[in-house]
């Protein structure tokens, strides 16, 4: 878990190569590479270059607007922000548990989101690299090229995404930036006609999702040396799991494992996430660097998202996806899989889980009606955590007695993977770029590693990330003199006595 290649000793004397914009990802990022006279790589950084200030301007707004406003953080995973905020606002309105109807409709919406986002990522964005090769012709290395040479794969990708978007439309009113969830519940049930319309395609979607797992697995196994080693690094892993240890992407408790798969913490109520997690600032990126507090910034960084989740849970509660999970775990031979490109395989297992979950929920009559909204004693603080397509997403608000938001903190999925992505591209730079004349194809290797994480740089740039923050004072010899931690409520505590 080194930070090698993060900062060159003499940046002014080095040649700079930039990849800008990083393409076939969502959002805005760039990579800079510094090389010496012999083309040896000295520094590699993924920069998040924008800053939006969402958490600041949400202050003063009435709390019930927030689940709709925060969707504009991200057009790819608006449902994740919508639901994380709604879960936080459930606490504000005192709804300790929403009704079965509300819970299941929200889950349906969320699994629609997982399905469409994972399909978009695999088929539209990453499959060109995997099907054609990392340094294949740039003119065809895109979804148009896939449509020309593998029309059935491209068509399935487009239709899988369409189905996920339709599930969102039915539960949220429209495909992008809908309004289904409200504090304490949902604003409408699913009609029988809507349910039947979705059910007509649900089984085909399960079958296609299963085929997608097989495709991702086939690609991995066909080139197992490359896929196992490319941009690979060991790290801790973090995700929500259900209380019984099952995979659950909508609700659960925090579980973290170390790089050998041993439990670091488990069953942690996310209500006080800042006891476990903190963030570090680096001057060259607007995206902060989170870490597990007990381990510190050097050892405590981790990865989130499909590769972490599939290995963090004990089982997946749908049969086809669980069979695929077992095969995936067996592939690791008793050791956690840290291969960056295995994210794709794990992601498709989750897409199958989402497809099966949608099918099951459509057969549940609770979604057709019942109590929509629950309320209780009004609270001042609300935390909502969800597993978004890219990983753990944390929303945290304080609301005053006039119903205005007075404080907001968002730690978005992609931010958790900040150090992991930087580590992965440094591995790739060391292995593939060092000492060579850089070509477009070689530089795309860097982007292939970034894409595996399915980063949503759009989310990452919007979120200000205000809380658990650690600042260290280091003396000239590199020794830590002091560290100050600001906790989730904005209170600063000195770590060292």
């Amino acid at each position, binding site marked *: 878990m080194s930070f090698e290649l993060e900062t060159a000793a003499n940046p002014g004397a080095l040649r700079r190569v930039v990849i800008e914009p990083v393409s076939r990802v969502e959002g805005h990022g760039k990579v800079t590479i510094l090389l010496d006279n012999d083309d040896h790589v000295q520094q590699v950084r993924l920069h998040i270059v924008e800053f939006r*200030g969402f958490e600041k301007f949400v202050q003063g707004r009435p709390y019930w607007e927030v689940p709709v406003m925060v969707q504009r953080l991200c057009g790819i995973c608006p449902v994740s922000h919508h639901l994380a905020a709604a879960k936080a606002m459930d606490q504000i309105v005192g709804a300790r548990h929403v009704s079965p109807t509300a819970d299941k409709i929200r889950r349906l919406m969320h699994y629609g989101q997982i399905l469409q986002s994972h399909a978009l990522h695999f088929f539209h964005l990453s499959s060109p690299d995997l099907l054609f090769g990392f340094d294949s012709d740039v003119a065809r290395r895109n979804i148009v090229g896939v449509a020309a040479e593998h029309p059935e794969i491209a068509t399935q990708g487009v239709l899988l*995404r369409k189905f996920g978007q339709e599930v969102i439309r039915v539960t949220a009113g429209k495909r992008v*930036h809908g309004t289904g969830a409200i504090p304490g519940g949902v604003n409408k049930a699913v009609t029988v006609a809507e349910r039947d319309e979705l059910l007509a395609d649900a089984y085909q979607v399960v079958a296609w999702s299963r085929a997608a797992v097989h495709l991702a697995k086939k690609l991995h196994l066909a080139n197992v040396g490359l896929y196992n080693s490319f941009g690979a690094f060991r790290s801790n892993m973090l995700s929500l799991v259900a209380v019984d240890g099952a995979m659950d992407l909508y609700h659960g408790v925090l579980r973290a494992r170390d790089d050998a798969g041993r439990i670091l913490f488990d069953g942690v109520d996310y209500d006080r996430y800042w006891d476990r997690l903190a963030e570090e600032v680096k001057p060259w990126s607007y995206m902060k660097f989170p870490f597990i507090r007990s381990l510190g910034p050097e050892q405590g960084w981790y990865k989130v998202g499909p590769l972490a989740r599939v290995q963090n849970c004990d089982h997946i509660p749908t049969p086809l996806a669980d069979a695929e999970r077992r095969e995936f775990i067996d592939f690791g031979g008793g050791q956690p899989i840290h291969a960056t490109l295995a994210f794709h395989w794990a992601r498709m297992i989750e897409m199958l889980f989402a497809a099966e979950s949608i099918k099951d929920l459509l057969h549940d009559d609770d979604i057709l009606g019942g109590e929509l909204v629950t309320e209780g004693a009004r609270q001042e603080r609300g935390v909502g955590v969800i597993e978004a397509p890219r990983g753990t997403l944390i929303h945290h608000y304080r609301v005053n007695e006039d119903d205005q938001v007075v404080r907001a903190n968002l730690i978005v999925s992609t931010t958790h993977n900040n150090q992991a992505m930087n580590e992965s591209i440094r591995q790739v730079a060391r292995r593939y770029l060092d000492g060579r004349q850089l070509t477009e194809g070689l530089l795309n290797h860097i982007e292939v590693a970034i894409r595996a994480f399915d980063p949503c740089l759009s989310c990452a740039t919007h979120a200000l990330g205000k809380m658990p923050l650690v600042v260290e004072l280091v003396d000239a010899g590199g020794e830590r003199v002091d560290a100050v931690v600001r906790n989730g409520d904005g209170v600063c505590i000195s770590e060292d006595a």
Partner: protein
Amino acid sequence: MSDGAKRKIRVATTSLAGCFGCHMSLLDIDERLFDLLEHVEFDRTPLTDIKHCGHCDVGLVEGGICNAENIHVLREFRKNCKVLVAVGACAVTGGLPAQRNHIDLGACLREVYVTEPSVLNGQIPNDPELPLLFDKVHALHEIVKIDYFLPGCPPPADAIWKFLTDLLAGHTPHLGHGLIHYD
């Protein structure tokens, strides 16, 4: 299209200070994407690895302007695209990100990265690799001439489809009732 044999229309797209929701709405034309590809080829878009916009017939720009890099990209699009379209609320008005316009940017950054007085060694990210942030978020037409404005957050897929197919057919795009949304 009036003449099926003629060259494909070249289209570039980008997202500036936006959320990619408008690009998602473009993809929400679903399988009509394959029909579109009969008549259109993509230049720089988030879906291709073309990093700079070449000569294009149509440029679709999502998002407003929040930093110096956005300006460079927008000017590159204006220079190279015959028809430049502001797609979605942020491009047309600045949109939701412009809600930060009433907040002092320095105070905003300090609150995040420097924090309360008791914090030691806080820093506002200031590396030369980070583009200059503007104190306000701007709509596209404040910077360059825009030929068409497509409202909505995001504009519905059917509106984007109607707009593009009208343009491809060679007439002035006309969005009838139900296709112009502001939500």
